[in-house]
Each structure stands twice: as C-alpha cells, then as structure tokens.
C-alpha cells in the first residue's frame, strides 16, 4: 500500500501542477519576453509611424505637429514630378521583375531537367557570379551602356538587370522539386520537350516564379546605387533617387514634404508586405540552406 501511493506521487506532483498553471496564466518570464519583443517592435515601427505623423500634420516652419492636413502630399507633387518618378520606378521595376521571371524560368528549367554536356560547369559559372558585388562591375557596365547608346535611359537600368543568377538558381531548385515522372507521362502522351515545359512544368512553377518576381520587385523598387550612376537627367530618375534629390534641393526647410514622398514610396512595399509576405520570406532565406 505505501509503495503504491508514494511512488507516483513524487514524480507526478512537481511536473503536472505547474505545467497546468502555466497553460492558464502566462508566467512572469513569458510576460517579460513579450515586453522585450513589444519594445523592439515599437523601435522598429516607431520611426515609420513618426514619418507618417509628420507627413499628415505639416507645419509651415517645417517639422510636424500642426493640424491634420494633406498639404504635404500636394506639395510633394508640385515640387517634383511625382507622377513621372512613380511611372519610371514602376516601369523599371515591372520590366525587371517580368524579365527576370521569364529568363530564370527558362534557364532554371534547362539546368534542372535537360541533360547536356557542360551543364554542371555552366551552372557553376552562373552560380559563381552571385558572389560578384554590383560595385565591381558598375564601371564597365556604365561604359557598355554608353557604347550601346543607352546612357541616361530607363533601358540602362532594365537591360543589365534581366539576367539573374539568383533567380536561375532558385528556379532550378524549384523545378528539381517537381516530380520527374510528369515529363515521362507527358512524353508518353506525345508531348515534345517544349510542350512538356509549357503545359506541364511552367504552370506548376508559378509559386517559385512568384518568389523570383516579388524579390525582383522589392529589390528594384528600392534600389538606389544603379539609378544614381546610370541615369543623369531628372526625367529618368526613379523614385528613391528623385526623393533624395528633392531633399537636397529643399534642405531641411520642408521636412513634411520630403516625408510625404517617403510615405508614398513605401506603399508598394506595404502591399508586398501584406499580400506577398510568405514568398518574400522564403525567397530571402532561399539559398542559405541546402
């Protein structure tokens, strides 16, 4: 009798009772953790919210704190050709994204599914170019663009950005993840290699293509270095470059105006954030794990 009652009592009591209590009420350590995370989140989102606040409460002397008004937004449209900047950015970003999706899908498919001599070596070279920083090739690319007669055009930004080593790598991985039996089934049904790609694999690769497209969109919408070098006249500026130039012209006189522009430039990023967060996250961390 004594053994049967004491043996279960000692190991059971200390483990089950606090465990159940923790499930009902968060313990002090959980609250502390959430507080730390909340502070970090506040520091992360705070500057963005402050920017928004200044932009909608402009004061004549600069800074914010006036009444609610959208005058800073109309101001930014009158100080700089916002419509043109947004159009340029959208055109460059859109064509870069679509171009990258297209070339990456084609090359990725061949590297994944079509065997030919030298395939591995060629893929290795493509992969190795991912290590080359943009800044080391920018001078010769600048010369090349000049030689092609494309300097100070939007094509100077689009054309060199269309071939993508990273996108090709991502799409190759994606196609490798699709079952090879589909190609055999398509061949038995009489489909040639082009038909197999177009009707079977390309439609299945859409989630992978979405990752390539969203990453390209995010990168090129935000990029600053290449537009700074490859465009010269303001009519070819993209949005970030236009806003930095605007700040240089206005000085700190009308903070709210520049910040209104900054807020507008963040809208597409917000759209991507809310509607394409998962592919974005997957894409950003792709290539870091095997």
């Amino acid at each position, binding site marked *: 009798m004594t053994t049967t009652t004491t043996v279960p009592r000692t190991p059971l009591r200390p483990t089950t009772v606090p465990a159940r209590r923790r499930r009902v009420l968060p313990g002090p350590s959980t609250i502390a*953790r959430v507080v730390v*995370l909340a502070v*970090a*989140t506040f*520091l*992360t*989102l705070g500057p*963005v919210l*402050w*920017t928004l606040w*200044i932009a909608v409460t402009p004061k004549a002397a600069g800074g914010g704190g006036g009444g609610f008004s959208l005058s800073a937004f109309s101001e930014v449209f009158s100080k700089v050709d916002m419509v043109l900047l947004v159009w340029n950015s959208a055109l460059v970003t859109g064509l870069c994204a679509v171009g990258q999706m297209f*070339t990456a899908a*084609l*090359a990725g498919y061949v590297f994944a599914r*079509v065997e*030919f001599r030298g395939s591995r070596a*060629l893929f290795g070279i*493509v992969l190795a*170019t991912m*290590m*080359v*920083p943009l*800044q*080391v*090739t920018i*001078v*010769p*690319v*600048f*010369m*090349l663009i000049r030689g092609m007669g494309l300097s100070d055009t939007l094509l100077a930004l689009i*054309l060199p950005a*269309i*071939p993508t*080593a990273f996108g090709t790598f991502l799409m190759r991985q994606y196609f490798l993840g699709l079952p090879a039996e589909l190609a055999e089934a398509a061949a038995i049904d009489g489909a*040639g*290699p*082009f038909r197999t790609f177009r009707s079977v694999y390309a439609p299945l690769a859409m989630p992978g293509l979405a990752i390539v497209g969203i990453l390209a969109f*995010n990168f090129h919408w*935000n*990029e*600053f*270095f290449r537009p*700074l*070098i490859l465009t010269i006249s303001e009519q070819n500026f993209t949005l970030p470059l236009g*806003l930095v130039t605007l*700040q240089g012209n206005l000085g*700190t006189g009308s*903070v709210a105006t*520049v*910040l209104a522009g*900054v807020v507008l*430039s*963040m809208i597409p*990023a917000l759209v991507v*954030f809310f509607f394409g*967060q998962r592919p974005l*996250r997957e894409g*950003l961390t792709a290539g*870091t794990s095997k």
Partner: protein
Amino acid sequence: MAVTLPAERPRVDASSATLHAVAGKRARRARGLMAALFLAPTVLGITLFTLIPIVASIVLAFFQWDIISPPKFVGVDNFVAIGTDPTVRVAFLNTFGFVVVAVALQLAVALGLAVLVQSKMPGWLRGFFRSALFFPLILSAASVSLMMAFLFNQDFGLVNQVLSLVNLPAVPWLTSAGGATVVVVLVYVWQNFGFSFLLFVGGLASIPRDVYEASSIDGITGWSQFRHITLPLLSPTVLVASVMAIISALQIFDQPYVLTRGGPGDSTRTAVMVIFESAFQQLQFGKASAIGIVLTLIIMGVTALQFRLSRRFVFYQ
C-alpha cells in the same frame, strides 16, 4: 472490361516502344534546341553584363583612364593608392570598423529577438512580432535614410526631442564625426537585422523539440540550455548569417551617401563610396576598378573562410 484490358496492354507497349525509337532522336534534337534557346538570355546576359565587366575591371585596374584621353598603363599604382591615398585608406578602415560593429550588433539583436519570438507564446502574437520585426528589411535604404536624417536632425528631430524631455542636451548627430558614425550604424542595423532574424527563426524552428524536453528533464534550462543546446545546434545558421551579414555590410553605400555624403570630413566614407566618387566624380576609372577588385577579393575571402570554418567548428546533426 476484365477481358479487354490484358489484350490491349501489349499492343500499347509495342507501339510506344517503336514510337520511342523514332521519337527518341527527334526528342533529343528538340531538347538540344531547347537547352540552347532557353539558356541564351541568361548565359548571354550574364556574359555581357557580369563576366566581361569583371575581366574589363581587372584590366582597367592597371590603367589610368578618364574616358577623355587614352588609357595609360600604370602597373599596380592604383592598388598602391588604396594604401597611400588618405581618403581611400580611411574609407577602407571605416568600412572594416563598420562591419565589425554593425555585424556584431545586428547578429546579437537578431539572435536575441529570434530566441524570444520562438519561445512559448500565443501563435497570433508570434506571427505579429515576426512580421513587424522584419518589416524594415523591405523598405528602400534611400527612403529609410531620408526618414532617419530627419529623425536624427539636431534641431527638430524626434531623437533630440526625446533627449530634451529627460533634460539631456541636443546631440549633433549628423554634424559630428562620432554622431554620424553612430547614426550610420544604427540606421543600417535597424534596417538589416530582420534578415539575420529570419535566418535565426528558421534555424531555431528546425531544432527538434525533444532535445529541449530531454535537457529540461536533466535540469538544464535557461541560459545554460541556450549556451549548451541551442547555440551548438544553431551554429550552421550562425555561420551563414554572419557571412551574409559581413558580405552585405562590406558593400554599405546608400545609408552614408544619403545621411552624410561621407562626412563630416571622411568620418562616414566607405569603400563603395570611394568607388563611386573615384569613377563618377573624379573620372579615375582605373582607381575605382582597383578598389572594386580589392573589395571583391575580400568578399571572396570571407566566403572561402566560411567553408573552412564550417568544416572545423560547426556542429552538424
């Protein structure tokens, strides 16, 4: 049905075999055509816009060239200038210092927050924190820097307003060498810790739960659990995150360019900034190429180090 099936099967097999033999050759030729057509845009594009420019850059690094007059061969002068030209040397030293401080801060913040976010809490709260903390990563570095330039403005910026609330004097954030350096590091880390954070969250999520359960039963909890269980199992992620953070920090440009244009003096000038200035402001294309090549070699060195270290120190399951 049961009678026709076995009768039909061999016929299908035979015809498909002959079809295969005839179609095999045609299919092989079609596949070759496909490989050539499909690879052409990527391979030609990368050759034209990456491979040829690398070679051109290497050649150009041994010349003095301002586009206008013909290039003049100067041997290794452009490389020597990296050590002797005070601006370039300071820019490289700034970049190294920046990489050490910013990467350490970025990894520490990211790892700490990743551990917290992966600890026990309601799912919706975890999802909210995870999204909010990686948000700055998707913004434009140029826009963020414009925003931060006003946030750290000496006269009306939010930071100095907060300092004045607690009776601290206004700090000349962007107009003093020390202040500008601190701001560049903070702005960079603010925007980029989310990337390491994502990697760490992924790494932590892949550690099996039973390891923690087993160690808790053995009485290993809290810090010692983090030190002896989490960190060794996370070491592959830590290595990858460090290398990627170093490579990206070595190329810092947007933030100091927008915030300070490299000033005050040369205090926030970086390696990429002197590439930009040498090439497109001083028209010294050879010098810019030499700096770019040295930066690339450093990046490749870091990548090579990653492979060596991962063999020696990283604990793989």
